[in-house]
């Protein structure tokens, strides 16, 4: 098998120049997310004092201004109409621009390199942020004054923090992460995915007509308007849908006019022709069904972008991007309008737009800086269960591989029939842009979703809309992106100290069983579970209350218009749910598993150490007990080595933790669930947890991801780690995050056949997700400096297998020198 190089594209493509434009560069100055974090560089990034945003990034106050004006103008209206009118006011009056060379248009802020804000959601946070750590975003004093005025209006109206006035006293205390160290409540944004395929069939005009027909029907049904509760709500909802959808259609017309104006002033004939073509496209979409790939891409971008600037504030995409566009590409190609290369260039224009957007939102990780991750999904099976791979699957990968821009990340769905050609493309891609790709397993996801009650055909249509979050595209799902970070090991700590926080000395958790009476891991697990249940009760009290408030204050009339069934039901997507998915993001699982295994081995089974001795050492952060710590670090089996002694504790732990979480219901009466999006936040939320029996010291990091082995403890190679991970009941629990590390030479070995076999076996094993950290020479250099982080790095040179950190410096140097040759 040879790694196929695709034919060279024309060198003079405009997108090549454009990608260097600052407008398309990542706006944040740090927080490259999982890659930086998983390599343990984050601390350094913070120490170096890098600003959260690039110096040329500015705050755009236009959205805040127009939304506020709109709300003020419609104060007599009920909230859904007021919000629709305010959003329409914003769309009709916001500044539009077209950047040079752009062939797909649709800006978010009033100028490039700017961030919009959402005061109706989190004005209190913004008010502090713009005078605090984000001060540099707002150099203009007049703007700052105006923004303060705006925030004043929103002080008691914005939803973020509103719950604090309403929470019962005994819960309010726990709202503050610093008071308990277990969970950090996070509003996050909301995500939802329009039904693009339907929009492409009917255009937004079709939506308006449907809403008008339903309004007409509602208003002419005497049985219905006898019940005003039902009648009025529906009537207002339909009116709101019509107002906002017309405004979105009008946005296309406004862009069309702008293209015409620029075309008239344009001297360059080629560009003039492009602008004329764009004017025609924007005149036609999103109002009408697109007829070409270019129109479909433009229509998609309008609907996607506008849904997001209106009310989808954070990460999330969730469309199957290779599926929705393929029919248009196929038709264009068959009718001779377009080649693969020309289509790829259009796709690259879309990729640029993904990178152009920016919004200022509260960071979900206190120290990591702002991070907006856009994920779109490719591959997988069709609704009928056949392989869905098509030419556009490859096209999006080619575009991303060549451009090297952050957004969007590609979630690749794998399944037993994924063709070899796609695996070969994946191989090429992870070597070029490892950080872009993550892999999801249909063999796990489809039964997982069906277990939640999702019908088979819809389950086959699932996508990833954030890091790990699943969504069914086009369905009435508007879900909270985050919810709460949960540092699970803190619950184990509370169990060890019977609910007392070792740092403050206060009784924070319930007074659970005395660990000195424990005789087995089961006792420890029960203590942990009880603590967890206590804290989850607090967290879900907050969660459910905020879900009520969001529904009350932030209806989403446009999203409701473009997903299935809301118009049919006459209900906003906040109210009518296809599936009400509510999730939280726990971290630190493996820290607990290794701790339980360590106690089992040394305290309960071998009885080498007494519980009193262990507790004493933990309380004192292992001070003066280094030999004991080394024993706990090295002797007990660790997660990730295919050893049932610890792995079965792990399986049990995931299932039982999940059972506790699922025992709490959301306001729609469905169980809450966990989600692997905790991702790289393990480095933040480990900061309030004391020493743990796995040998970890006070405040040290937890493991990375939700299932990845703790650093330096997976000593049996990647297959053993995958086997350990596969022992979890993935389909029965939740979506797990699994990071793996490889050197490029390792990926390339044997023409990549081994790597592909590894991925295929990942599918066989039913593991939910994986992503690869493909690191090279630099990693080895870093491993020399920080050997403690690379205990698992195996160097393989013909005839010899050794752990890199076990070797002396001269030998390591030799290996580093030889990596380039990649022998064997």
């Amino acid at each position, binding site marked *: 098998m040879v790694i196929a190089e695709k034919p060279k594209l024309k060198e003079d493509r405009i997108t090549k120049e454009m990608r260097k434009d600052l407008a398309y560069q990542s706006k944040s100055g740090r927080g490259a997310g999982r890659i930086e974090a998983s390599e343990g560089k984050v601390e350094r990034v913070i120490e170096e004092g890098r600003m959260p945003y690039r110096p040329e990034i500015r705050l755009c106050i236009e959205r805040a201004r127009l939304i506020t004006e709109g709300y003020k103008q419609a104060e007599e209206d009920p909230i859904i109409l007021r919000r629709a009118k305010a959003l329409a006011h914003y769309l009709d009056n916001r500044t539009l621009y077209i950047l040079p060379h752009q062939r797909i248009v649709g800006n978010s802020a009033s100028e490039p390199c700017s961030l919009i804000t959402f005061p109706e959601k989190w004005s209190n946070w913004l008010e502090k942020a713009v005078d605090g750590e984000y001060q540099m975003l707002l150099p203009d004093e007049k703007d700052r004054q105006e923004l303060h005025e705006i925030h004043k209006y929103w002080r008691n109206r914005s939803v973020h923090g509103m719950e604090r006035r309403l929470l019962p006293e005994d819960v309010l205390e726990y709202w503050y992460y610093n008071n308990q160290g277990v969970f950090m409540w996070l509003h996050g944004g909301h995500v939802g995915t329009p039904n693009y395929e339907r929009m492409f069939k009917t255009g937004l005009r079709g939506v308006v007509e449907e809403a008008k027909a339903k309004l007409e029907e509602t208003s002419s049904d005497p049985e219905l308007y006898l019940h005003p509760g039902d009648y009025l709500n529906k009537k207002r909802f339909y009116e709101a849908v019509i107002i906002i959808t017309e405004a979105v259609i009008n946005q296309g017309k406004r862009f069309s006019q702008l293209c015409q104006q620029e075309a008239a002033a344009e001297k360059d004939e080629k560009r003039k022709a492009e602008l004329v073509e764009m004017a025609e496209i924007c005149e036609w979409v999103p109002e009408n069904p697109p007829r070409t790939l270019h129109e479909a891409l433009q229509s998609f971008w309008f609907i996607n972008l506008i849904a997001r600037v209106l009310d989808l504030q954070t990460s999330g995409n969730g469309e199957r991007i290779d599926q929705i566009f393929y029919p248009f590409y196929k038709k264009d190609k068959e009718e001779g309008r377009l080649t693969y290369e020309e289509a790829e260039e259009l796709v690259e224009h879309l990729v640029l737009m993904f990178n152009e957007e920016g919004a200022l939102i509260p960071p979900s990780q206190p120290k990591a800086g702002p991070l907006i991750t856009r994920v779109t999904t490719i591959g997988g099976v069709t609704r009928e269960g056949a392989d869905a791979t098509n030419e556009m699957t490859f096209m999006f990968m080619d575009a991303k591989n060549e451009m090297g821009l952050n957004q969007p990340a590609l979630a690749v769905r794998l399944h037993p029939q994924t063709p070899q050609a796609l695996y070969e493309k994946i191989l090429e891609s992870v070597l070029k842009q490892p950080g872009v790709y993550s892999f999801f397993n249909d063999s796990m996801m489809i039964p997982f979703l069906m277990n939640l009650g999702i019908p088979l055909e819809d389950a086959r249509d699932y996508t990833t809309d954030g890091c790990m979050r699943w969504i069914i595209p086009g369905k009435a799902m508007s879900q909270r992106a985050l919810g709460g970070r949960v540092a699970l090991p803190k619950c184990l700590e509370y169990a060890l100290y019977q609910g007392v926080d070792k740092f403050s000395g206060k009784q924070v958790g319930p007074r659970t069983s005395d660990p000195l009476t424990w005789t087995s891991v089961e006792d420890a697990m029960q203590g942990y579970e009880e603590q967890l249940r206590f804290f989850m009760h607090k967290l879900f009290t907050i969660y459910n209350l905020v879900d009520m408030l969001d529904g009350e204050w932030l209806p989403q009339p446009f999203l409701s218009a473009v997903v299935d069934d809301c118009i049919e039901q006459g209900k906003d997507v906040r109210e009518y749910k296809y599936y009400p998915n509510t999730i939280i993001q726990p971290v630190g699982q493996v820290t607990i598993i290794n701790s339980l295994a360590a106690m089992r081995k040394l305290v309960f089974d071998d009885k080498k150490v007494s519980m009193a001795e262990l507790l004493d050492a933990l309380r004192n952060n292992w001070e003066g007990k*280094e*030999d*004991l710590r*080394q*024993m706990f*670090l*090295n*002797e007990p089996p660790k997660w990730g080595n*295919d050893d049932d002694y610890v792995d079965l504790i792990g399986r049990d732990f995931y299932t039982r933790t999940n059972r506790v979480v699922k025992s709490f219901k959301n306001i729609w009466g469905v169980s809450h669930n966990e989600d692997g999006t905790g991702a790289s936040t393990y480095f933040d939320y480990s900061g309030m947890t004391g020493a743990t029996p796995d040998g970890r010291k006070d405040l040290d990091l937890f493991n990375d991801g939700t299932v990845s082995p703790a650093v330096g403890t997976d000593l*049996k*190679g*990647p*297959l*053993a780690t995958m*086997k350990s991970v596969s022992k979890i009941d993935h389909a029965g629990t939740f979506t797990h995050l699994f990071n793996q590390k490889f050197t490029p030479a390792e990926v390339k*070995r*044997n023409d990549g*056949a*081994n790597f592909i*076999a*590894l991925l*295929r*076996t990942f599918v*066989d*094993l039913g593991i939910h997700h994986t992503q690869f950290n493909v690191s090279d020479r630099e990693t080895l250099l870093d491993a020399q400096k920080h*050997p403690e982080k690379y205990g698992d790095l195996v160097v*393989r*040179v*013909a*005839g*010899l*297998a*050794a752990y890199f*950190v*076990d*070797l*002396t410096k001269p*030998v390591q140097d*030799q*290996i580093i020198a*030889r990596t380039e*040759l990649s*022998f*064997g």
Partner: protein
Amino acid sequence: MEEERGLVFLIQRYSVQDGPGLRTTIFMKGCPLRCQWCQNPESLSLHPDLMTHDTKCMLLGKCADACPLGAITIDRKSRKIDRAKCDLCFHCVDTCPTKALSKVGEYMTVAEVMAEIERDELFYRRSGGGVTVSGGEPLLQWQFVHRLLEACKQRHLHTALDTCGYAQWPILEKVLEHVDLVLYDIKHIDPELHKKATGKSNQRILRNLHLIPPHKKVWLRLPLIPGFNDSRENLTELGKLGQEIGVEKVSILPYHKLAEEKYRQLGMQRKMSPLKPPTKRQLQKVQPLIESFGLQVTIGS
């Protein structure tokens, strides 16, 4: 009767250099040769060895306390082991909390080894991999190896034997019953030079190679040692040999000095090896020369 156990020093999962696909390699202890360039000195003896890992040692002194013979001394800067006193009881290994000492070599039953092998069965199937028995020289423990390979074939796993070929033919013949692929080391064509560098003549090795039944796949493996076996003449003879036998490919394993550390870790006295690894240019010359005999050549496995 109790089953005879085999002395295994490493079971390497995710082994990618000892045959096709993803494999598990079982390294057997004991070797009849003493090659100057040996990369796995821990494989030589037919008993478990004590290996040190100084980078992990925190000088806690537990090993010194545990040693019944007083063979270990710790001062502020280092840990010293008097190998002459040591009788390999391994009490020290059990007490070290940092795992700075290890026992190399475990007596295992076929069932125990199979349990490890079966863990990665799915990976073998997906990658066309399987099991490789290597060493040391696996034929030294041929009865165990034969039973192990038989057990693999009962489970329809692909098997490879990595051997230096130094054994009585009936033994090799017997073991080959359950072998799909033979990785056959040729260090040198000349018997005298071979004897000088490894302690044994290669006559038996070459004779055995010719006796391997033609339906068994063979990969020749040449550890490439500049100044010893990289002459045009030797490589030409090797090429001819490969052609004559009809081998599937020739693997060139470039010598490297990475194992030097292991000698220290085992407390083995050894002069600094005068051997040098091949340069990239030297390697580039070797490959086409052997290829000119119509053979497939890879660097590494």
